[in-house]
């Protein structure tokens, strides 16, 4: 088992599980569609970044519920643990495949979101950039919680309880980006902070997840 082969394996598996993969995207679209129905149209552009980010956060958390649980239940995790390739590299590949399958479609839904919330194209691009910078850290944070709760029956709630408070800085910095951009200010500082978080999460996250999974299984 090599990391590249495992990456292809994960993508192929996610492609076969397209019904499950589509659910968080539907959740994302349905929740986004609720706000324009209950808020006056003039308030929507100012609400848009917060609504988008909170909905994206919840939809990512929804997708993480089964990230490792299935592997624990079908015994697949033991094969990952015993693989000659480092577990952290396999985990990194799994997370990359998960981001492609679950998070990338959120970007494709952005034009529709712009239309519903009357967000100008330039602001939409800033929102997309903030999502691109923030979602990797968000996914990795959630994956750490998913790994810790993989062996538990009610792991879904624990996943939310662990991730939501930890996700707050990412949410705040992402919203700062859109806020500063809307006011014509340079938003490089919060963008660099999110980028730094993404790099640190991507470097350390798989190691922490590997250790968490080992604890979960033993």
């Amino acid at each position: 088992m090599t990391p590249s082969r495992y990456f292809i394996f994960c993508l192929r598996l996610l492609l076969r599980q397209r019904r499950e993969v589509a659910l968080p995207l539907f959740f994302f679209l349905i929740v986004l569609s609720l706000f324009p129905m209950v808020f006056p149209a003039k308030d929507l552009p100012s609400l848009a970044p917060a609504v988008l980010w909170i909905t994206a956060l919840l939809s990512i958390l929804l997708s993480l519920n089964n990230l490792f649980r299935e592997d624990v239940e079908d015994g697949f995790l033991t094969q990952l643990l015993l693989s000659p390739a480092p577990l952290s590299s396999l985990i990194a590949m799994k997370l990359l495949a998960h981001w492609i399958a679950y998070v990338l479609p959120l970007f494709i839904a952005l034009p529709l979101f712009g239309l519903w919330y009357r967000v100008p194209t330039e602001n939409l691009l800033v929102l997309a950039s903030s999502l691109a910078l923030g979602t990797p850290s968000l996914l990795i944070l959630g994956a750490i919680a998913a790994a810790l709760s993989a062996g538990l029956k009610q792991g879904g709630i624990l996943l939310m309880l662990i991730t939501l408070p930890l996700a707050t800085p990412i949410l705040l910095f992402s919203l700062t980006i859109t806020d500063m951009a809307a006011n014509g200010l340079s938003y490089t500082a919060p963008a660099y902070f999110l980028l730094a978080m993404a790099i640190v999460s991507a470097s350390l996250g798989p190691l922490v997840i590997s250790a968490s999974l080992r604890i979960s299984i033993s």
Partner: protein
Amino acid sequence: MTGQYVKIEKIAYTYGTRSLFSDLSFNLPHGCVLQIMGKNGSGKTTLLQLISGIKTCQEGTIFWDKTIHYTYIGHKNAIKGELSPIENLKLYNPSDNKCRQALEMIGLELRHHLRPCYMLSAGQQRKVALSRLFLSDAHVWLLDEPFTALDENTKNRMTLHLEKHTSNGGSAIIAAHEPLKIQKSVIKKLVIK
């Protein structure tokens, strides 16, 4: 470690307050099958998991010959139902031919090779899991209840593969309830009470 793949010294494992085993020592020579026997819940799976490194020993030491490698097939099949047997096996070996050969060696008919595994019976799924043995050149096979759900024909086939493996110098540690019907290999038995 001359002539031994694994040497186990005074290991112990406790679940909560219940001691599964303690002061357990044995070794696995080349070309030998070690059968771990014991009633349900006696700790056969735990012992295999300790040997494989999935779990860590609470006491004692397990010495592996560092120059060799091993394959572990647990009592769970570790296959993905949405993928076909070939797609599952390609994770371990990218060659379609090698994967097909492995499935044929365990006796899974060609017509099942490309069907999603969830459409296969429990026995056929077990065959897919066991076929991983033939994709690795592991010196030691660690098998947890390998014969579960298998028909007599496949059990005999698997026994022949085990005999061939040991005649080539390989070894196996097998947790199984039923006594193994191996005739041509040296069998050691370890009963956990």
